[in-house]
């Protein structure tokens, strides 16, 4: 009996571990989309953050510096999308996809430049177990903070106005383009923490493709969570649970590939079940022109 209880606790703990990067990415996605910009580039943000966090940690010996660098890198990638979406009015989905590919290639390229070896970096000073715990707790705290910011503060109201009807926001004196820009960038910094978690907390190195589509699962979490920080958190936990489940079920003799597919299938099913019934912010994905 206690063996079962122990296994359950382990599963829950692993759920938290697996969900945390998803939570950060999803929160970043929520903020971005609430302002009206679809951020498909979450995967690229995670990649850039994970990579630069490792590079900075290796260079300075300080994982904290690594975390900070990761956030800056994530925000920078987000800024490219933010600029392209607001000033250039490009198709946000196509641009986001391009960013993901850029980040993947850039990180692989950077691996060789910085560490002189392809595929993976060497091990670097990491945030360790205490760092993991802090980041997990911070994810929940950020969800609460984002909810408060979006639904209780003037800035949050302005962001939501830009996501619903940017022209009406402009008439009220809000700079819709600038509001969107910063929402995307801040969202990128938040999402970046997910990448930092992957490379400096859960592990202590960067390897090609380590983000493994988490940025896309996070997008499904945004939709599943109805563009609400708490909803996104819940959805991320849900998908994280399936990722954690794969380890428990592997011992039950189910082929590992099918288990690995669980979170992706879960995301797909959630999308199919929910997508038609929820409404994105009205101006989500639609460029605003003055």
């Amino acid at each position, binding site marked *: 009996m206690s063996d079962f209880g122990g296994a359950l606790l382990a599963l829950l703990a692993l759920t938290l571990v697996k969900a945390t990067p998803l939570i950060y990415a999803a929160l970043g996605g929520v903020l971005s989309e609430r302002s009206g910009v679809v951020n498909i580039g979450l995967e690229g943000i995670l990649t850039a953050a994970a990579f630069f966090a490792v590079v900075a940690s290796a260079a300075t010996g300080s994982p904290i510096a690594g975390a900070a660098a990761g956030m800056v890198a994530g925000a920078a990638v987000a800024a490219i999308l933010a600029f392209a979406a607001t000033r250039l009015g490009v*198709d946000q989905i196509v641009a986001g996809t391009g960013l993901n590919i850029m980040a993947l290639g850039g990180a692989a*390229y950077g691996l060789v430049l910085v560490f002189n070896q392809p595929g993976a970096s060497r091990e670097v000073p990491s945030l360790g177990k205490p760092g993991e715990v802090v980041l997990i707790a911070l994810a929940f705290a950020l969800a609460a903070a984002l909810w408060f910011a979006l639904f209780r503060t003037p800035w949050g109201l302005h962001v939501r106005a830009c996501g619903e009807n940017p022209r009406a926001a402009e008439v009220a004196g809000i700079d819709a383009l600038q509001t969107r820009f910063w929402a995307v960038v801040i969202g990128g910094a938040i999402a970046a923490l997910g990448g930092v978690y992957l490379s400096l907390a859960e592990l202590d190195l960067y390897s090609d493709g380590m983000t*493994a589509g988490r940025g896309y699962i996070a997008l499904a979490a945004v939709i599943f969570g109805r563009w609400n920080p708490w909803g996104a958190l819940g959805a991320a936990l849900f998908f994280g649970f399936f990722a954690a489940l794969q380890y428990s079920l592997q011992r039950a003799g189910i*082929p590992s590939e099918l288990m690995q597919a669980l979170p992706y299938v879960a995301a797909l099913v959630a999308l*199919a079940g929910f997508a*038609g019934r929820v409404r994105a912010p009205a101006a989500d994905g639609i460029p605003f022109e003055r």
Partner: protein
Amino acid sequence: MGRTLRDALIALGIVFGVGSGAMLLAHVSPIDGFGALFDGALGNASELAETLLQTTALLFPALGIALAFRAGLFNIGAEGQIVLGGMTAGILGVALPLPGPLLIPVVLVAGACAGGLWGGLAGFLKARFGANEVISTLMLNTIAILLATYLIGGPFKQPGAGAAETPQLPPAAWLPVLVPNSRLSVSFLIALALAAALQYAFHRTVFGYELRAAGKAPEAARRAGIDLGRTAFSAMALSGAIAGLGGATIVMGVLHRFNTGLSPGYGFVAIAVALVGNLEPLFIIIAAFGFGILQSGAIAMQAEANVPRDIVTLIEGLVIVALAGRRFVAERRTS
């Protein structure tokens, strides 16, 4: 035409500009770097054949992606569709007891159907549930690779198979070679023919007309009697089928077996190819050739000039961002 030219120039600018910058970061002179790239891609006949091979591998998914784009849909799942098409070819090519002239078309069609099924699944989810096809095709990519790995190692494991790959195809299932002593097969011609057919289909047929209308103005299309759900489904299925066909040709024409690594990201680079070609099949051929040069030259560039080949991926991503354009303005719409 003017727009295509401008986009092509932007792409070229990025390739040479950013490429040079990144090369300098690696302490390599751009002249050496690009020299190695072009020499490696076009230096002699066999290298040219290899470049055309890469061109073909890109052309198939790019045509499929362009078709989906025209219908207002974004197929990022070409990678998974290529894998499943290739897997089907790898399994059936060995398992079907048919003579050569029959075996090849049957297996090619089967590969296309596998890709079409996968793309159609995303199309169905979009048409029926309004599920965003970007996220669903991305999920399906990963699921496809895992599924293929499982199938060829488990239920469809064949005698003589290695780890994570199928046994070698019998010669009856090999595509005829176009240039002797190279890996370039008739798949190149198939791709060209397909491009021509799509060009015609887009601009002359009722199907192409309805597809483009649905992509441009869904509300007006709906009132004109166009079934948006069916269009979304057929566009995604056809898009997947074309990519799947590409995967099958890689297996039957190049590798002569299937392994899950048969596509080093063709499905993603093809997005850039489709955009640079302005979604016009004939221009896409040219764009595919340009990117084919990058792909095949990159290996030589790494070997001879010490420039990591991932720089090409970086450049390709940047091209996509630069050409994201105002054209598509994706709407969240249900059928």
